[in-house]
């Protein structure tokens, strides 16, 4: 069959991999019957494929394999734990601290009873809400900075 041996070589590769269309496959069948050079190429690539398939490589030990799959899934639980802790903190701090600050600033109990014993000292009434607010702002500022750095720092993985 008339053909160019060099142009046929990629087809022989695809033929051995079972990736040719039926017509190309039939064409290669005919070429391999007629052409000694293409038949030799076929033998060589076949031998190479077998050689690559039988290459000895290190494998994971049983222990490593088990540890890896455990670590991969345990990470999910630790992430969930972190998420719940942060969500709980935001809820308690956000709602609880706001409620407490509001009670202090408005001096709600004194306003309700009018009893001097229930009156909150001035420095606590305004100092504590300021302290809570300040810590909250600092916490969230640092949290957002850390998150931003973790997502955008291209040097994080560079080993020094």
């Amino acid at each position, binding site marked *: 069959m008339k053909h160019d041996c060099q142009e046929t070589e990629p087809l022989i590769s695809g033929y051995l991999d079972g990736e040719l269309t039926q017509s190309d496959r039939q064409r290669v069948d005919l070429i391999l019957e007629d052409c000694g050079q293409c038949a030799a190429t076929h033998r060589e690539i076949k031998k190479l494929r077998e050689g*690559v398939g039988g*290459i000895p490589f290190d494998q994971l030990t049983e222990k490593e394999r088990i540890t*890896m799959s455990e*670590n991969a899934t345990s990470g999910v639980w630790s992430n969930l734990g972190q998420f719940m802790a942060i969500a709980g903190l935001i809820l308690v701090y956000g709602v609880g601290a706001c409620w407490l600050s509001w009670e202090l600033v408005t001096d709600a109990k004194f306003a309700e009873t009018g009893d001097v014993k229930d009156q909150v000292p001035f420095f606590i009434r305004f100092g504590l809400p300021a302290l809570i607010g300040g810590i909250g702002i600092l916490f969230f500022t640092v949290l957002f900075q850390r998150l931003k750095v973790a997502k955008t720092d291209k040097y994080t993985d560079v080993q020094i």
Partner: protein
Amino acid sequence: MVNCQPNATARLQWPLAGEMTVDNNLPSRDELEALSESGFALAIQLLGRHEDAADVVQDSLRKLVHSGRYKAQKGSPLAWFLKVVRNGALDALRQRRPNDEEAVAELKDRARLPDVAIEQEELAGIVRRQLEAMPVDQREIVLLRDFHDLSYTEIAEVLGIAPGTVMSRLHRARNELRKRMKKYLK
């Protein structure tokens, strides 16, 4: 060192599509172990150092589990995972300092073994050395096809290239290997 039979890691222990836990968000333990084995084979083939390969596979498994893509992705889960491992291995290769290239130096030394010693070894051992001396892009495509037994479509997915270019790329890589192996193939 264990002699892997052809495509052993990729196919024999890989659960069939029907056996996969489609309803779960996370892959089953068996699936994770099969993935880690196939992923490790590719990582060690690209990196040459056990610890580095294990680190890459561990990171890739975490990404797989955390991304939630395992259930969502449409193609072969193995091809998708090998793509993650391959990217991780290439990153690790880029981060290696030139004077810290123990593995690479080891590979080069092995590639220069005297002919007498080479002749005493089996074909697979010789192929391995010659493959390791080839550029990564040629080495990986040969290994993905002939060791991991991926189809051309799956190879295209792992390498992020058009499926139509796999045959020609693979042929070029095999030709290079053939040139290096010429005297052993007669």
